[in-house]
């Protein structure tokens, strides 16, 4: 197992290298000039050139890449072109809201979707099943921002139960922190509830027709135990896969949700950095997201072996 983990971690190196080269080249090839953006409208050509020089953007692309790469290898993500802050500082400032939102979303999605999926499978063909499937189709189909604006309209603008925008940090108190996350979490979790509920239902339907489930029922096992101990555990591998993929896909959803609710997280930082052509920030954030993606895939593989003893690495 340890050898497997080490092997997988080593395999991330070429993946990260490819991502780094790709992101670096893409940014340098886009028709934009961070120096002109920084200088502002009133700047003279000379001022723009000065800034370009200061940022090292006049160097050949290969030189720029090696300077950046050597810094990354030393653990230095560089300094933002715009903020008088290091990229590491910016990321550490922004990571809490994103982690909070992601954690709440995944927890809510799993807590709601798995029982819904099990229920739909148990009542296969019934009105409950159709309702779960209907919700699932809707969850896939409606874009995240539409759900966000709808929730804001109802619960923030009309009912005034929740704030329309913003975020409170956890050190401001758990109450305000959770309060500000309610609508964003609901917004982002809809698509994951839909995804996980559907996969749970499909997986459960396959398992419920297996002999061991029939045997468990024949033994007189109560239905709750049949469903959750015998059936769900055997149906769990594809569900865990979807949850894992969902966490990775969450990155995209976080960008939209953070923008809609003006949450100062990594998603919004990415959008701002892209719009401002803040190359060091974009490069660092994308590298980080890629690393998280690889790591989650590794975790999912490890969870397989916990759920199914037949799977060994």
């Amino acid at each position, binding site marked *: 197992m340890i050898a497997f983990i080490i092997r997988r971690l080593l395999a991330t190196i070429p993946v990260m290298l490819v991502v780094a080269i790709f992101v670096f080249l893409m940014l340098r090839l886009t028709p934009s000039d961070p120096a002109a953006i920084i200088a502002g409208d009133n700047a003279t050509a000379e001022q723009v050139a000065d800034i370009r020089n200061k940022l090292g953007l006049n160097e050949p692309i290969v030189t720029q890449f090696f300077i950046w790469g050597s810094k990354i290898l030393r653990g230095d993500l560089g300094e933002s072109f715009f903020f008088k*802050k290091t990229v590491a500082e910016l990321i550490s400032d922004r990571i809490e809201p994103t982690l909070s939102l992601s954690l709440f979303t995944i927890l809510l999605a799993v807590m709601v979707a798995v029982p819904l999926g099990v229920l739909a499978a148990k009542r296969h063909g019934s009105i409950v099943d159709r309702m779960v499937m209907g919700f699932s189709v809707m969850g896939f189909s409606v874009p995240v921002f539409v759900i966000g604006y709808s929730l804001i309209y109802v619960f923030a603008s009309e009912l005034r139960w929740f704030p329309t925008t913003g975020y409170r940090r956890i050190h401001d108190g758990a109450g305000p922190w959770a309060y500000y996350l309610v609508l964003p979490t609901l917004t982002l979790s809809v698509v994951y509830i839909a995804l996980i509920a559907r996969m749970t239902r499909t997986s459960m339907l396959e398992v419920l027709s297996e002999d061991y489930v029939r045997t468990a029922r024949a033994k007189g096992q109560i239905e709750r135990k049949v469903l959750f101990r015998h059936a769900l555990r055997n149906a769990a591998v594809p569900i865990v896969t979807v949850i894992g993929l969902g966490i990775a896909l969450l990155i995209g959803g976080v960008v939209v949700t953070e923008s*809609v609710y003006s949450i100062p997280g990594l998603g919004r930082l990415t959008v701002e950095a892209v719009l401002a052509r803040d190359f060091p920030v974009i490069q660092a954030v994308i590298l980080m997201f890629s690393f998280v993606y690889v790591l989650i895939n590794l975790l999912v593989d490890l969870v397989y072996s916990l759920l199914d003893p037949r799977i060994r690495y």
Partner: protein
Amino acid sequence: MTSMWGSIRGGALAAGTVAAMAAGVTSAQAQKTLRVVMHSDLKIVDPIWTTAYIVRNHGYMVYDTLFAQDANGEIKPQMADTYTVSDDKLTHTITLRDGLLWHDGAPVTAEDCAASIKRWAARDSVGQKLMSFVETISASDAKTIVIKLKSPTGLVLIGLGKPSSNVPFMMPKRVAETDPNTQISDFTGSGPFVFNKDLWKPGDKTVYIKFDKYKPRSEPASGLAGGKVVKVDRVEWRAISDQQQIANALLSGEIDFVEQPKHDLIPLYKKDPNIVVKDYNPLGNQYVFRMNWTQKPFDNPKVRQAIFYAFNQKDFLEGVIGNPEFYKECKAMFICGTSLATEKGMEDKFTSNFAKARELLKEGGYDGTPIVLMQSTDLDVLTNLAPVGKSLLEKAGFKVDMQSMDWQTLVGRRVKKDAPSAGGWNAAFTSWVAADVTNPISAAFVNASCEKAAWGWPCDEALEKLRDEFARATEPAKQKEIAEAVQVRVSEVGTHVYLGQWYQPQVHRNTVTNFITAPAPVFWNVELK
């Protein structure tokens, strides 16, 4: 609908839960905090290093100026107590008011101010011109700044009282001695608010705390001049980028003031009795069409002149702003309502006289090659300019290749001198804050110094001579005469084509009062009920 929401609102369970969760949110806002949404998030904090307007606005919070423009456009002393000019107009002496302090408690000295003027002058276009007249800037004692000139100029007050980017903000000597091409990292000012670096969270909020030891002038606040009396404890600039969300936040009372609400949403704001819609910047903004002099066909003055005849201002203003309450046609390049406003040279222009435009195109030998017109698609106040322009240009006989892109791509592309087919460009639209273009020195697009000029790179010796003459002029009548000549010359050579003035109203809750009418949004004098 309202009654339905009303009845749901009464849901005791939900309300109880929400109240419990929200506990602590309200207590955190106990002090008088003004919550505002500016036109963009604050990323850079050196108002001398960049000309970005958000950084200028930040500058007005944190720093003070020696002189400032009042509501009538006159330059008045601000940190300055007295200002005298020698009979030969070569020595300008400024003494500082008593009791001026930096945010760290140290007194403001003339040495600090001399160093600040030098750093500002190294970056700013008016400052650079001013320095060509300056022999020395020094401190004769702790409170007296002496500017000695090589020859007389009217730019001392124009420069030191400049209301918009770059504003000559005063900084402590240790900060002002930072290389002008490097951002400062010490944010000590002497202005009415202290910038709290620890609470500055880019993408979230910027926090300014009232500077208790600030000594305001005794005169009432007027424009950017007069007494800067702070009546709130704290101002928070909240970073919300989505206009609909800004509206939701203002209507629900989560924020107090919005600097640049979308024009389309003004009717929504007006419907709410708790919201005040008012324009606090009477000079407004000016739309501009800029041509690239280094590329065909705009390397030809006849072709550039044709634009003055092809365009009319109303089509652009209608197409973008729509509501006549928020725009004005104006043939004065240096902004209607200012001392240098004139229609000279423009009397027969902006009439969409397509026959005349075609004639000029023919004289200019335009061969029908499509011009690359860049369109910015993500800024509401600019997006529709290019389609309107394309239509008018085509009616005048141009072929137009309108290329759409986001604003930052446009900003990056417009500094390229490559051929349009190789990633360069022929023409683009933009907008100026009117306060930036009220004279021939500060108006960047009038600069026709070829390579050193702003993007578009106009090159005209006669125009540069006129700008130099303006810089030397010290009498208002003479300045006006030269400004008229500059405008006439612009109409002949076509450095740019201006397309009328538009206004950006601000919106705020009616619990906030006493905003100051000024070319930049400022938050002293503002009261919060």
